[in-house]
């Protein structure tokens, strides 16, 4: 089997659309996962009754079940109880819910770095606990959890490839589709490997820069 460059060029538009879909679904899910993570970590930190144990259960449930099954549950299972999401939003929801569980733990990790003294100082100044969290702990804690959050985001981007299984036309879907129709196996895998490696390494490099930046002292 020879490597057919002309074929690759001909498939470029379809692959490009696939890549855009991968990026679109991943970026929306990343943003949502950070919102879920922040809210979840706050509920845990403030020990809000009912909500805090629920967040704990959510995190354990997501981390101890396969992402692929979660996706099928959301896309094929939820319509039975009246929750009908489009393919795209099913993809976003499953990735966001999955990564959100990890973001809760990442942000909790960041918050745990914030010293006891800062909480006490906030309380002593007459701030309510929620205010201390919002104005004192989160600005510092979120910053400390950025490297971990980026790592989870990298996983999210990578694992968006799972969505081809429910039929979302992402990069992997397009490539696998071409393989089954045209048998251009080498060309398509070359594209997949190179693209994912470039994307992941770019994000990892960004994460490295942020991590080094964070190691500098505060207030600069």
């Amino acid at each position, binding site marked *: 089997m020879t490597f057919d460059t002309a074929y690759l060029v001909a498939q470029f538009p379809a692959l490009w659309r696939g890549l855009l879909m991968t990026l679109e679904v991943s970026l929306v899910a990343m943003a949502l996962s950070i919102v879920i993570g922040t809210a979840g970590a706050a509920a845990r930190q403030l020990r809000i009754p009912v909500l805090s144990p629920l967040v704990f259960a959510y995190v354990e449930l997501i981390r101890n079940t396969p992402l*692929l*099954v979660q996706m099928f549950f959301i896309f094929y299972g939820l319509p039975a109880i009246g929750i009908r999401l489009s393919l795209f939003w099913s993809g976003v929801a499953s990735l966001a819910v999955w990564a959100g569980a990890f973001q809760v733990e990442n942000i909790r990790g960041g918050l745990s770095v914030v010293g006891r003294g800062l909480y006490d100082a906030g309380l002593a100044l007459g701030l309510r606990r929620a205010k201390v969290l919002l104005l004192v702990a989160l600005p510092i804690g979120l910053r400390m959890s950025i490297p971990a959050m980026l790592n989870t985001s990298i996983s999210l981007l990578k694992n968006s490839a799972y969505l081809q299984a429910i039929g979302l036309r992402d990069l992997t879907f397009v490539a696998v589709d071409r393989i089954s129709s045209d048998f251009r196996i080498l060309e398509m895998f070359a594209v997949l490997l190179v693209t994912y490696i470039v994307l992941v390494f770019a994000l990892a490099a960004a994460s490295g820069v942020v991590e080094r930046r964070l190691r500098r002292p505060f207030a600069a």
Partner: protein
Amino acid sequence: MSLIVENAPLFVAGLWATLRIAVVTLIASTLIGFAIGTMATARTAWLRWIARAYTEVLRAVPLIVNLFFVYFVAPLLGLALSPYLAVVVGLSLWGGANAAEVVRGGLLAVPRHQRETARALGLREWQVLLLVVIPQALRAIVPALAGLLVLLLQSTSLGALVGVSEFFRVGQLVIERTTVMQGLDPAFGIYAFMLAVYFVLCSALTLVSRRLERRLGGRHLAAPAL
């Protein structure tokens, strides 16, 4: 609910296949992990580079792409892999990369002076590794490998995509059959049931991993991630 009871033998067979794949890939991953992880801490630079390239590439590529790669490319190389074997090989290569990171972390967690003392006592390089460093590194490595088993167990579900009759595939078959023959859609109940089964198995393993970590008292290694 009655669907699950009616199809219990199918589910049990699927679960058995899932567990078998998970255990076989864990063993293969561990072997690959020790080979690559030891290379990653070797004194020879090019060995370290090979180990690094292997782990970085396998961890950067989505597991599902890696699996399809083995499934589609192996026949081109004249290897006729059954779907079952393709999944085992694909998961093991990926698990091996993650295990290598674990082993590397474990080896680096052993204080330097242990190596130096062993060398000073006249042990050969392989003896230093095998008799002094690895036994101490195991305290950190074993709990993390139990964590890897959780991920492997979850990832066996990808086998359904290439037609391996493991647990998840069985669930899909039951749903398809019920939809076609009885005209109702049991997807919600069946998928919820499957999530519950995976949850029980994986959280039990997660607990074992945490307990091992406390019991063995090794350094905490970053858990492998999907």
